[in-house]
């Protein structure tokens, strides 16, 4: 009975082939494909070349699974078993499993593709991160290297202005000065951007005088704006709180950047700054800063784009000055302060940038007021001795010139970190200006070793002249015992302010 069923339902997916030891076909049932008798089976398909390695061993069975056999236009995916029976008789059994293996192929396809995709993605991501880190490091290092030459350039042009010059020469120096200022700002911008991208831009929360900040800005820009024969109007709301809590440096940067842009894109007319109080609520003051100009304006289509890095527009290219990084940084800062910024502008209709930012209110405290250099100066009783530790000649020369012009100080210069402590012990030193770029020495270590001296020496004030500008670095200096940091590039005023503040 079973035999009948077996015959009826026999699966025709096996082919039996008998060959001799050389691979000549003796018999075949041709179920799957027709094979000519007496031909070499190796000529049917190169798989069978394997026989050359097998026919020495008799009474064995070799199994091969999932072998693709291309025959004429068909491809069979098969399991092949080779039985090497007696001398000159070998049986080949080919089982056609094409359907079964095709299903397996589909599963393998999906599995492999998804594994490969995730590996490629992972690598791309790693690669991008590496590139990113390289870029940020490169920017930080590069701008670091520019600090000494720019400092020297700023200071010497300032010194030149104070010397006897013809009015032509004075003009040239003013041009150099303004170029220096631009250069310095661009470097700060690039550095800020790398800080933003690496998540290292951190806002400080400190009490500052809004009044002072605005007055300083107005003083600085009044000069720049009138020099371009533009009118400068500013309105400060009398209701503005005098003291606020927040990041004054960044606020100054925001307003400064907006004013810089206004100057850059305005040929005639006026530039207007208005700062007003929106409201005071829950111990916070919401301040509105508006900067408007009568310049070339921006097409409404581009209102969003101007906040994107390195965008330029045809109307802007004309005077060869990109908007650059400034506005993208401004927007980042405003948003980071939980504020908002918008622009209203038409082509040839001027532009108006408005930002609203909240600051924590703080109680009025008179002692916070920074004394001006002039006030500080009067207090010096006798000539003070300053020690400069620095091996960059440009910076040595810059400090020397400023201090010599100022009078009232002795300056000693040391270039080797090892000589600092002995010098302090053997000489009277009122203030140390310590560079953090002395080859082979860390300003941190020198500061620590000074702070570890005996009582009479360890109190000497230390101002670190630093080209490190990341917050963590500055914090580390302070922790090591430095009194203040003077960031490079510095100018005459900021150097003198630090000196007067810390000498007794």
């Amino acid at each position: 009975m079973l035999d009948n069923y077996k015959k009826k339902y026999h699966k025709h997916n096996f082919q039996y082939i008998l060959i001799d030891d050389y691979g000549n076909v003796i018999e075949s049932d041709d179920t799957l494909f027709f094979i000519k008798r007496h031909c070499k089976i190796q000529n049917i398909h190169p798989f069978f070349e394997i026989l050359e390695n097998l026919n020495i061993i008799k009474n064995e069975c070799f199994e091969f699974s999932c072998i693709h056999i291309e025959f004429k236009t068909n491809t069979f995916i098969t399991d092949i078993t080779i039985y090497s029976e007696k001398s000159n008789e070998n049986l080949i059994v080919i089982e056609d499993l094409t359907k079964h293996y095709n299903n397996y192929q589909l599963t393998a396809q999906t599995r492999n593709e998804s594994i490969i995709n995730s590996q490629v993605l992972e690598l791309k991501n790693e690669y991008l991160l590496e590139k990113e880190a390289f870029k940020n490091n490169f920017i930080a290092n590069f701008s670091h290297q520019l600090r000494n030459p720019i400092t020297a350039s700023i200071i010497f042009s300032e010194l030149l202005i104070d010397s006897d010059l013809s009015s032509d020469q004075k003009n040239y120096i003013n041009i150099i000065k303004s170029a220096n200022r631009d250069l310095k700002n661009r470097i700060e911008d690039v550095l800020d951007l790398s800080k933003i991208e690496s998540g290292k831009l951190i806002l400080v929360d400190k009490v500052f005088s809004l009044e002072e900040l605005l007055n300083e800005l107005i003083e600085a820009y009044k000069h720049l704006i009138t020099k371009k024969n533009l009118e400068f109007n500013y309105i400060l709301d009398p209701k503005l709180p005098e003291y606020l809590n927040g990041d004054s440096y960044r606020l100054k940067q925001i307003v400064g950047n907006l004013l810089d842009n206004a100057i850059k894109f305005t040929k005639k007319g006026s530039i207007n700054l208005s700062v007003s109080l929106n409201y005071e609520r829950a111990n916070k003051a919401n301040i509105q800063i508006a900067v408007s100009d009568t310049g070339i304006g921006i097409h409404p289509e581009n209102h969003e784009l101007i906040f994107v890095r390195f965008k330029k527009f045809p109307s802007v290219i004309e005077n060869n000055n990109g908007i650059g990084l400034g506005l993208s940084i401004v927007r980042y800062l405003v948003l980071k302060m939980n504020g908002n910024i918008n622009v209203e502008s038409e082509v040839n209709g001027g532009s108006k940038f408005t930002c609203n930012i909240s600051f924590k209110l703080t109680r009025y405290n008179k002692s916070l007021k920074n004394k001006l250099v002039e006030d500080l100066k009067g207090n010096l009783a006798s000539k003070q001795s300053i020690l400069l530790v620095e091996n960059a000649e440009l910076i040595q020369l810059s400090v020397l010139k400023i201090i010599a012009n100022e009078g009232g100080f002795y300056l000693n210069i040391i270039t080797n970190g090892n000589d600092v402590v002995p010098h302090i012990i053997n000489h009277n030193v009122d203030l140390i200006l310590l560079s953090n770029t002395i080859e082979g020495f860390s300003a941190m270590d020198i500061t620590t070793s000074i702070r570890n001296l005996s009582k009479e020496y360890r109190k000497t004030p230390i101002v670190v002249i630093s080209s490190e500008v990341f917050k963590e670095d500055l914090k580390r200096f302070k922790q090591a015992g430095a009194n203040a940091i003077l960031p490079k590039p510095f100018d005459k005023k900021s150097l003198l302010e630090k000196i007067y503040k810390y000498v007794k």
Partner: protein
Amino acid sequence: MITSKKIVLIGHFGVGKTSLIRRFVENTFSEDYKVTIGVHISKKTIEISDNKTSVSLVIWDLEGQDDIKKTRTSYLLGTHGFIYVFDLSRPETFKNLKSELSFLSENYKNIPVKVVGNKVDLVNKAYLTQHTGTFKPLVEFFVSAKTGSRVESLFSKLARELF
């Protein structure tokens, strides 16, 4: 009669084993990836330039494995030469290169192995130095099935060593 030798390509899936064979045998290339299951066998007769003799290479294209030990041993029976392929653009495919190679040399003594980094068209010099630094000396060929670069010389060098 032309003598033939069995060459087996092994390595992870997707590294380009099938593509290298297609480039060598048919001189074609496709961006599409079709997973090889089991084994495909193809044959190509070449001339070994020095003595003008024709020889046949029977090339076994194996299903890719992320671990060489998973390869069915019956496939490797009678192998004369190995080509171990990895994908330069996917470090995952060469992170165990050293142990895979020592597995081969322990179990298939005296059978030559050519170690091949494929898809060289996708990576640049800096990447190569950075990612292949430690095992670069082991790699004999940097090839591309896509551009065909060094594919011919890979096979003919192996052939010359076998005949």
